């Protein structure tokens, strides 16, 4: 016996829309089994995981803090993925943007004033974009696989940050802790509603970026160019669009947004550079992008859901005493079910026996009308 995927003649619009929700429901079911096996009442676990982190206003602020970088990065990634460019290195662009954006507050702490913060944000975006241009250059010049190059550059960026905060950028008065000086007040991203919680401008950036990229992709010629080249490169060339230019555009746009997320995280939520500035936002954002169906507006909702898994993981650790790595397990399961549901929208599964059937009415082949 073997399983085969058979292409469906047409996609169901209903299930296309329902797919993210079905995937989420399946994740919950699989999670319940997981908790039961760990000896924890699934209802208690789910309450701790998904409900308790958002019962008070300050907690909603925390959710916005977690969701903001996810949304920013995923919106950029959606442009890459729509153009069939597989940028897996957003985590590296996030880190590198944070490093470049931190040059001013770390090396020139005496520079203060209203211009400092915009300058930092701009430098963060430029840093992320330049870092993302490396795999774009390698792909267009040497035809390298961008999945590998962009992923490997993540580790380069992380180790570079590690070296900086332990070496040249270490705070001399920091008791030898591996971290930079605390950013001065004019280098800190302002909070939105300081009275009720910590959420900062980063969440606003995320929403604005989502709307702008949505307009770009669905209403503008540039977005059309990206979609054409992504879906049929030869037709794109016939249209007169340049594939190489588009590779740079997609990589640098997503790099700039990841860099903006990085500097926003450092200047907002953390306030200084330290060896680790991201709990894997750049990778989780890949899940966010697909859960949001590569639509910037869907990504806002998906970013909030995935942000919740981070908070739930922390809560589960403190209340239930289980590892916060459970959050990663949840994220992994969610991606698995999202991709699974999407596949089943386009294909159906067929069971095939190995022994030849005696009658003529079977057609056990993966086939397509030509």
């Amino acid at each position: 016996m073997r399983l085969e995927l058979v292409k469906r003649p047409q996609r169901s619009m209903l299930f296309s829309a329902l797919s993210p929700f079905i995937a989420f429901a399946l994740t919950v079911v699989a999670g319940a089994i997981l908790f039961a096996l760990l000896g924890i009442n699934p209802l208690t676990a789910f309450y701790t995981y998904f409900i308790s982190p958002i019962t008070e206003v300050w907690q909603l602020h925390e959710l916005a803090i977690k969701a903001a970088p996810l949304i920013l990065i995923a919106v950029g990634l959606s442009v890459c993925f729509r153009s069939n460019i597989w940028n897996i290195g957003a985590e590296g662009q996030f880190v590198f943007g944070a490093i470049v954006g931190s040059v001013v507050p770390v090396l020139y702490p005496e520079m203060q004033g209203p211009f400092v913060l915009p300058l930092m944000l701009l430098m963060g975006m430029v840093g992320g974009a330049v870092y993302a241009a490396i795999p774009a250059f390698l792909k267009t010049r040497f035809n390298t696989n961008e999945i590998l190059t962009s992923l490997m550059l993540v580790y380069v960026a992380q180790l570079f940050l590690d070296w900086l905060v332990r070496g040249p950028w270490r705070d001399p008065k920091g008791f030898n802790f591996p971290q930079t000086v605390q950013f001065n007040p004019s280098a800190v991203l302002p909070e939105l509603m300081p009275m009720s919680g910590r959420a900062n401008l980063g969440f606003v950036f995320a929403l604005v970026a989502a709307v702008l990229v949505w307009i770009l992709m669905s209403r503008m010629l540039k977005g059309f160019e990206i979609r054409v080249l992504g879906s049929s490169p030869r037709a794109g060339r016939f249209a007169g669009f340049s594939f190489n230019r588009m590779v740079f555009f997609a990589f640098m746009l997503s790099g700039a947004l990841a860099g903006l997320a990085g500097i926003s995280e450092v200047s907002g939520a953390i306030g200084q550079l330290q060896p680790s500035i991201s709990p894997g936002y750049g990778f989780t954002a890949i899940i966010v992008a697909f859960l949001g169906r590569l639509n910037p507006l869907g990504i806002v909702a998906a970013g909030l859901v995935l942000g919740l898994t981070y908070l739930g993981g922390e809560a589960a650790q403190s209340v239930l005493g289980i590892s916060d790595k459970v959050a990663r397990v949840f994220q992994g399961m969610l991606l698995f079910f999202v991709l699974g549901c999407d596949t089943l929208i386009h294909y159906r599964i067929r069971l095939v026996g190995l022994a030849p059937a005696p009658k003529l009415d079977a057609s056990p082949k993966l086939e397509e009308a030509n």
Partner: protein
Amino acid sequence: MGGTVSAQEAAASLLEVRGLTKVFGTLTACDHIDLTIEKGEIHALLGENGAGKSTLVKMLFGSLEPHSGEIRWDGQPVRMTSPSVAKKLGIGMVFQHFSLFEALTAAENIALSLDDGAPIGSIAAKARALSYSYGLPLDPDSLVGDLSVGERQRIEIIRCLLQAPQLIILDEPTSVLTPQEADKLFETLERLRAEGKSILYISHRLEEVKRLCDRATVLRHGKVVGHCNPREETAASLARMMVGNEVKSAERTPITLDGAQELLSVCGLSRKPAGPFSMPLKNIWLSVKAGEILGIAGVAGNGQGELFEALSGEVQQTSADAVRIRGKDAGKLDITGRRLLGAAFVPEERLGHGAAPRMKLSENLLLSRYATDGKAFVGSGGMVKSGAVYEAAQRIVRIMDVRKSAPDPEAAALSGGNLQKFIVGRELDRQPTVMIVNQPTWGVDAGASAHIRQALIELARGGSAVLVISQDLDELFEISDAIAVMHNGELSKPIPIAEATFERIGLLMGGAAPGHVYQKLETA
């Protein structure tokens, strides 16, 4: 399904097919097909592109499995689960698209398809003997990459004959041959028939079917619409059966081109081959004047695709004056630059080249028009005026009579002919000064073909220059004012339509005629 055929009746026929059905998704490609092939006959399978001919023979050859129906071989029910089952029974197939390794010799290619592990030397000797005895001379030691299309087809035929089949299926064998090569093939087929072998001959060329075949089965939209004796029919009556209604041919008014302005000129265009087996372009000269349609004939793979890419600007030239559009140097312009000079292009491949399959018709309109109609379709700041694009797409749909199931469907949802009408209409809508079309009606049904051809003639008579690259000689004779022939990357001098005959063009297509290129012509 007719399962009640008596044993005696069935035993008389070599192959009998009853109620064969194949469904792809929602499309019923073959719908209860009945077909009987007797021993020692050449049986024609007629039908337009998309009528289900290829699907039917793939089921007979075991590369597709039917959903329902039965196949009887010598009266015995059989199940064709794979091509090797079909080969063991005695069915051989020569495909329209060859399956040969270009980097291997003819004998090596033949050896690959025989499972008996015989030494290559003896296979080569057998192949050589067989090929000469059937009048299809073949050198088994030659490299396939160096052979012409006609010679490659011989390898396929010899490979098939070596397995001593009772039934040989030929899928559109003459579509890649010159008229002279085709004559040679017909002689071979008649000899095979005389030896008692059966041939299933798939074609949409009615004249050759009338000449060669004993019986014909006509398919339309996946159904059998009739069996007949093609010798008792006229080409027109066969066409009516295939298409379902009367087919009118395009009307071409004569024109004098003296003093007309030269709108497209190509001067000494050469291009190195892009890959090991792609064709270089060698010193090509041509010129198309206002009001003229120049046809470029040639057997597939002689550089037509390369020429189209060079003219469209998808591949640019090293010297700016190698291609001139409306008197301006265009050799170093990209496709957008050439469009802005007034040129329009329709490539051979519809899905994936001329149109993006998963995009709507309106978006596919924008694909080739966003620069030339920038004011109408693109607003300030690069915003697409989707309303205006949609209106223009609907206008083209109306003018070209594009049939579709939704207001603005994806390109892939249209049939080949309707999509081609849209793509041609998209360019005509601009009133281009220079129009370059590769295979305008390839795979398009007769009605749509006539529409497209008439539209091209009207564009030319309105004062534009039209260049049509096609492998369909009937089409070129129908619409061209002059025909030039591509062979081996070289282009012949154009022959005015009044002096052109099938024979003359056919000789040029085979590269056999002296004076193929300009220089040769001068010394001849």
